[in-house]
């Protein structure tokens, strides 16, 4: 059997007001983008608990993208400022335990930046594809299943 080409799974947590609308614009503008990203719409980037990201990796994601409104544009005024502080810690922490910046990406994409969204998402997917599947996390997850079976 021919070896299947690896297609990465990327989970994108996007804010309802900017990036989701921006991605929508990319769609209505017929801009072509790679289909590997699964979008999860949240009210605000401030709503993204880092535990979501952990869960995404645990459930088999090869990469995660987090995207929201530009600073100052938040629908709830300060949500993305709070989120930005949290991410500063979170990316350092994940980097420290071995999930580096090739797996975890952040961006600001506004509702009018359909083109930027396509560039960002293609860039992320290419980086993750280059890295290959996130086998390390899958290994420990496999172990879980084995333990349940035995």
């Amino acid at each position: 059997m021919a070896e299947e080409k690896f297609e990465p799974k990327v989970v994108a947590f996007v804010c309802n007001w900017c990036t989701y609308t921006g991605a929508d614009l990319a769609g209505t503008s017929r801009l072509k983008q790679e289909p590997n990203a699964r979008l999860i719409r949240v009210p605000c980037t401030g709503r993204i608990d880092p535990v979501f990201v952990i869960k995404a990796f645990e459930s088999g994601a090869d990469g995660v993208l987090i995207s929201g409104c530009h600073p100052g544009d938040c629908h709830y005024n300060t949500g993305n400022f709070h989120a930005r502080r949290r991410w500063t810690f979170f990316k350092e922490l994940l980097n420290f335990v071995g999930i580096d910046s090739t797996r975890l990406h952040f961006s600001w994409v506004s509702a009018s930046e359909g083109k930027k969204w396509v560039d960002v998402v293609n860039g992320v997917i290419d980086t993750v594809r280059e890295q290959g599947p996130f086998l390390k996390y899958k290994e420990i997850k496999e172990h879980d299943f084995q333990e349940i079976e035995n």
Partner: protein
Amino acid sequence: MPDLIEIAKGLLESKEVSFIIGYTKDRFGRVKPYIAKSVEDANNLMFDHHSIHNLAVYLTRLKIPENGRVGIVAKSCDIKAIIALIQENQIKREQVYIIGMNCSGVVTHSTDEWKKENIQIKCKYCADKAPMLYDAVAGTAEPFEQPDDTQEVLMQKLETMSSAERWDFWAKEFEKCIKCYACRQVCPMCYCEQCLAEKNQPQWITTSPTPAGNFSWNIIKAFHMAGRCVGCHECERACPMGIPLTLLTRKMGMVAGKEFNYRHGMAIDQPTLVGSYNFNDNEDFIK
């Protein structure tokens, strides 16, 4: 310098505090946490280099009278935890009477002697040995020779590793975890009435001690300490499996210092780091 027991007796006699959280020696001569409720009890209080426990944890675990006051015997690292609790609105400044102890470093085991090799890791890089917030001070600090900071060496070694190597290091460490949650129970900053680990709809963290579940638990615990950990190292001391948890919390503390020039538990009127924001925060990592 007035004696700890004298201060405690005075406080309990005048009924200024309803009880005092302190240390005592059990019948084997080991130091343990103790609550003195009467003047007679105050005779049992003591403090030495075996008084390693961070008693600030009891401030959120015990029922503290709303308008009353409790006394607490605290080293400088414990005082940081008390300040942090005040900063996070868990207790009021008026509710605690802090008996600050001049500390000369603590040792990990009750059988250990007070000497350079046995001093706990946290004392190795402790910058403030004298109490910073107190109502009374007791004890005398003896100068001690600062041992080498072995943790920092390990930290630097980890930083120079590749991500895959770091992953392997932590996967091996987290594999040991038995999910006893001792690190959470002993932590003065872990005061949530319902912990994320106990939520089951949805269940974010697998409850069984399996590698993936251990990974998410330890990461989330460390993340919840981001910008909040005061560095008392109780989690690592309580861990029965010897996981170097303080490497993670210390790393978070270093990020807070580097990125925001912030240390938690230094001033009671300072806003908390993750509870506030600044327009000019660094965002180099965001595309």
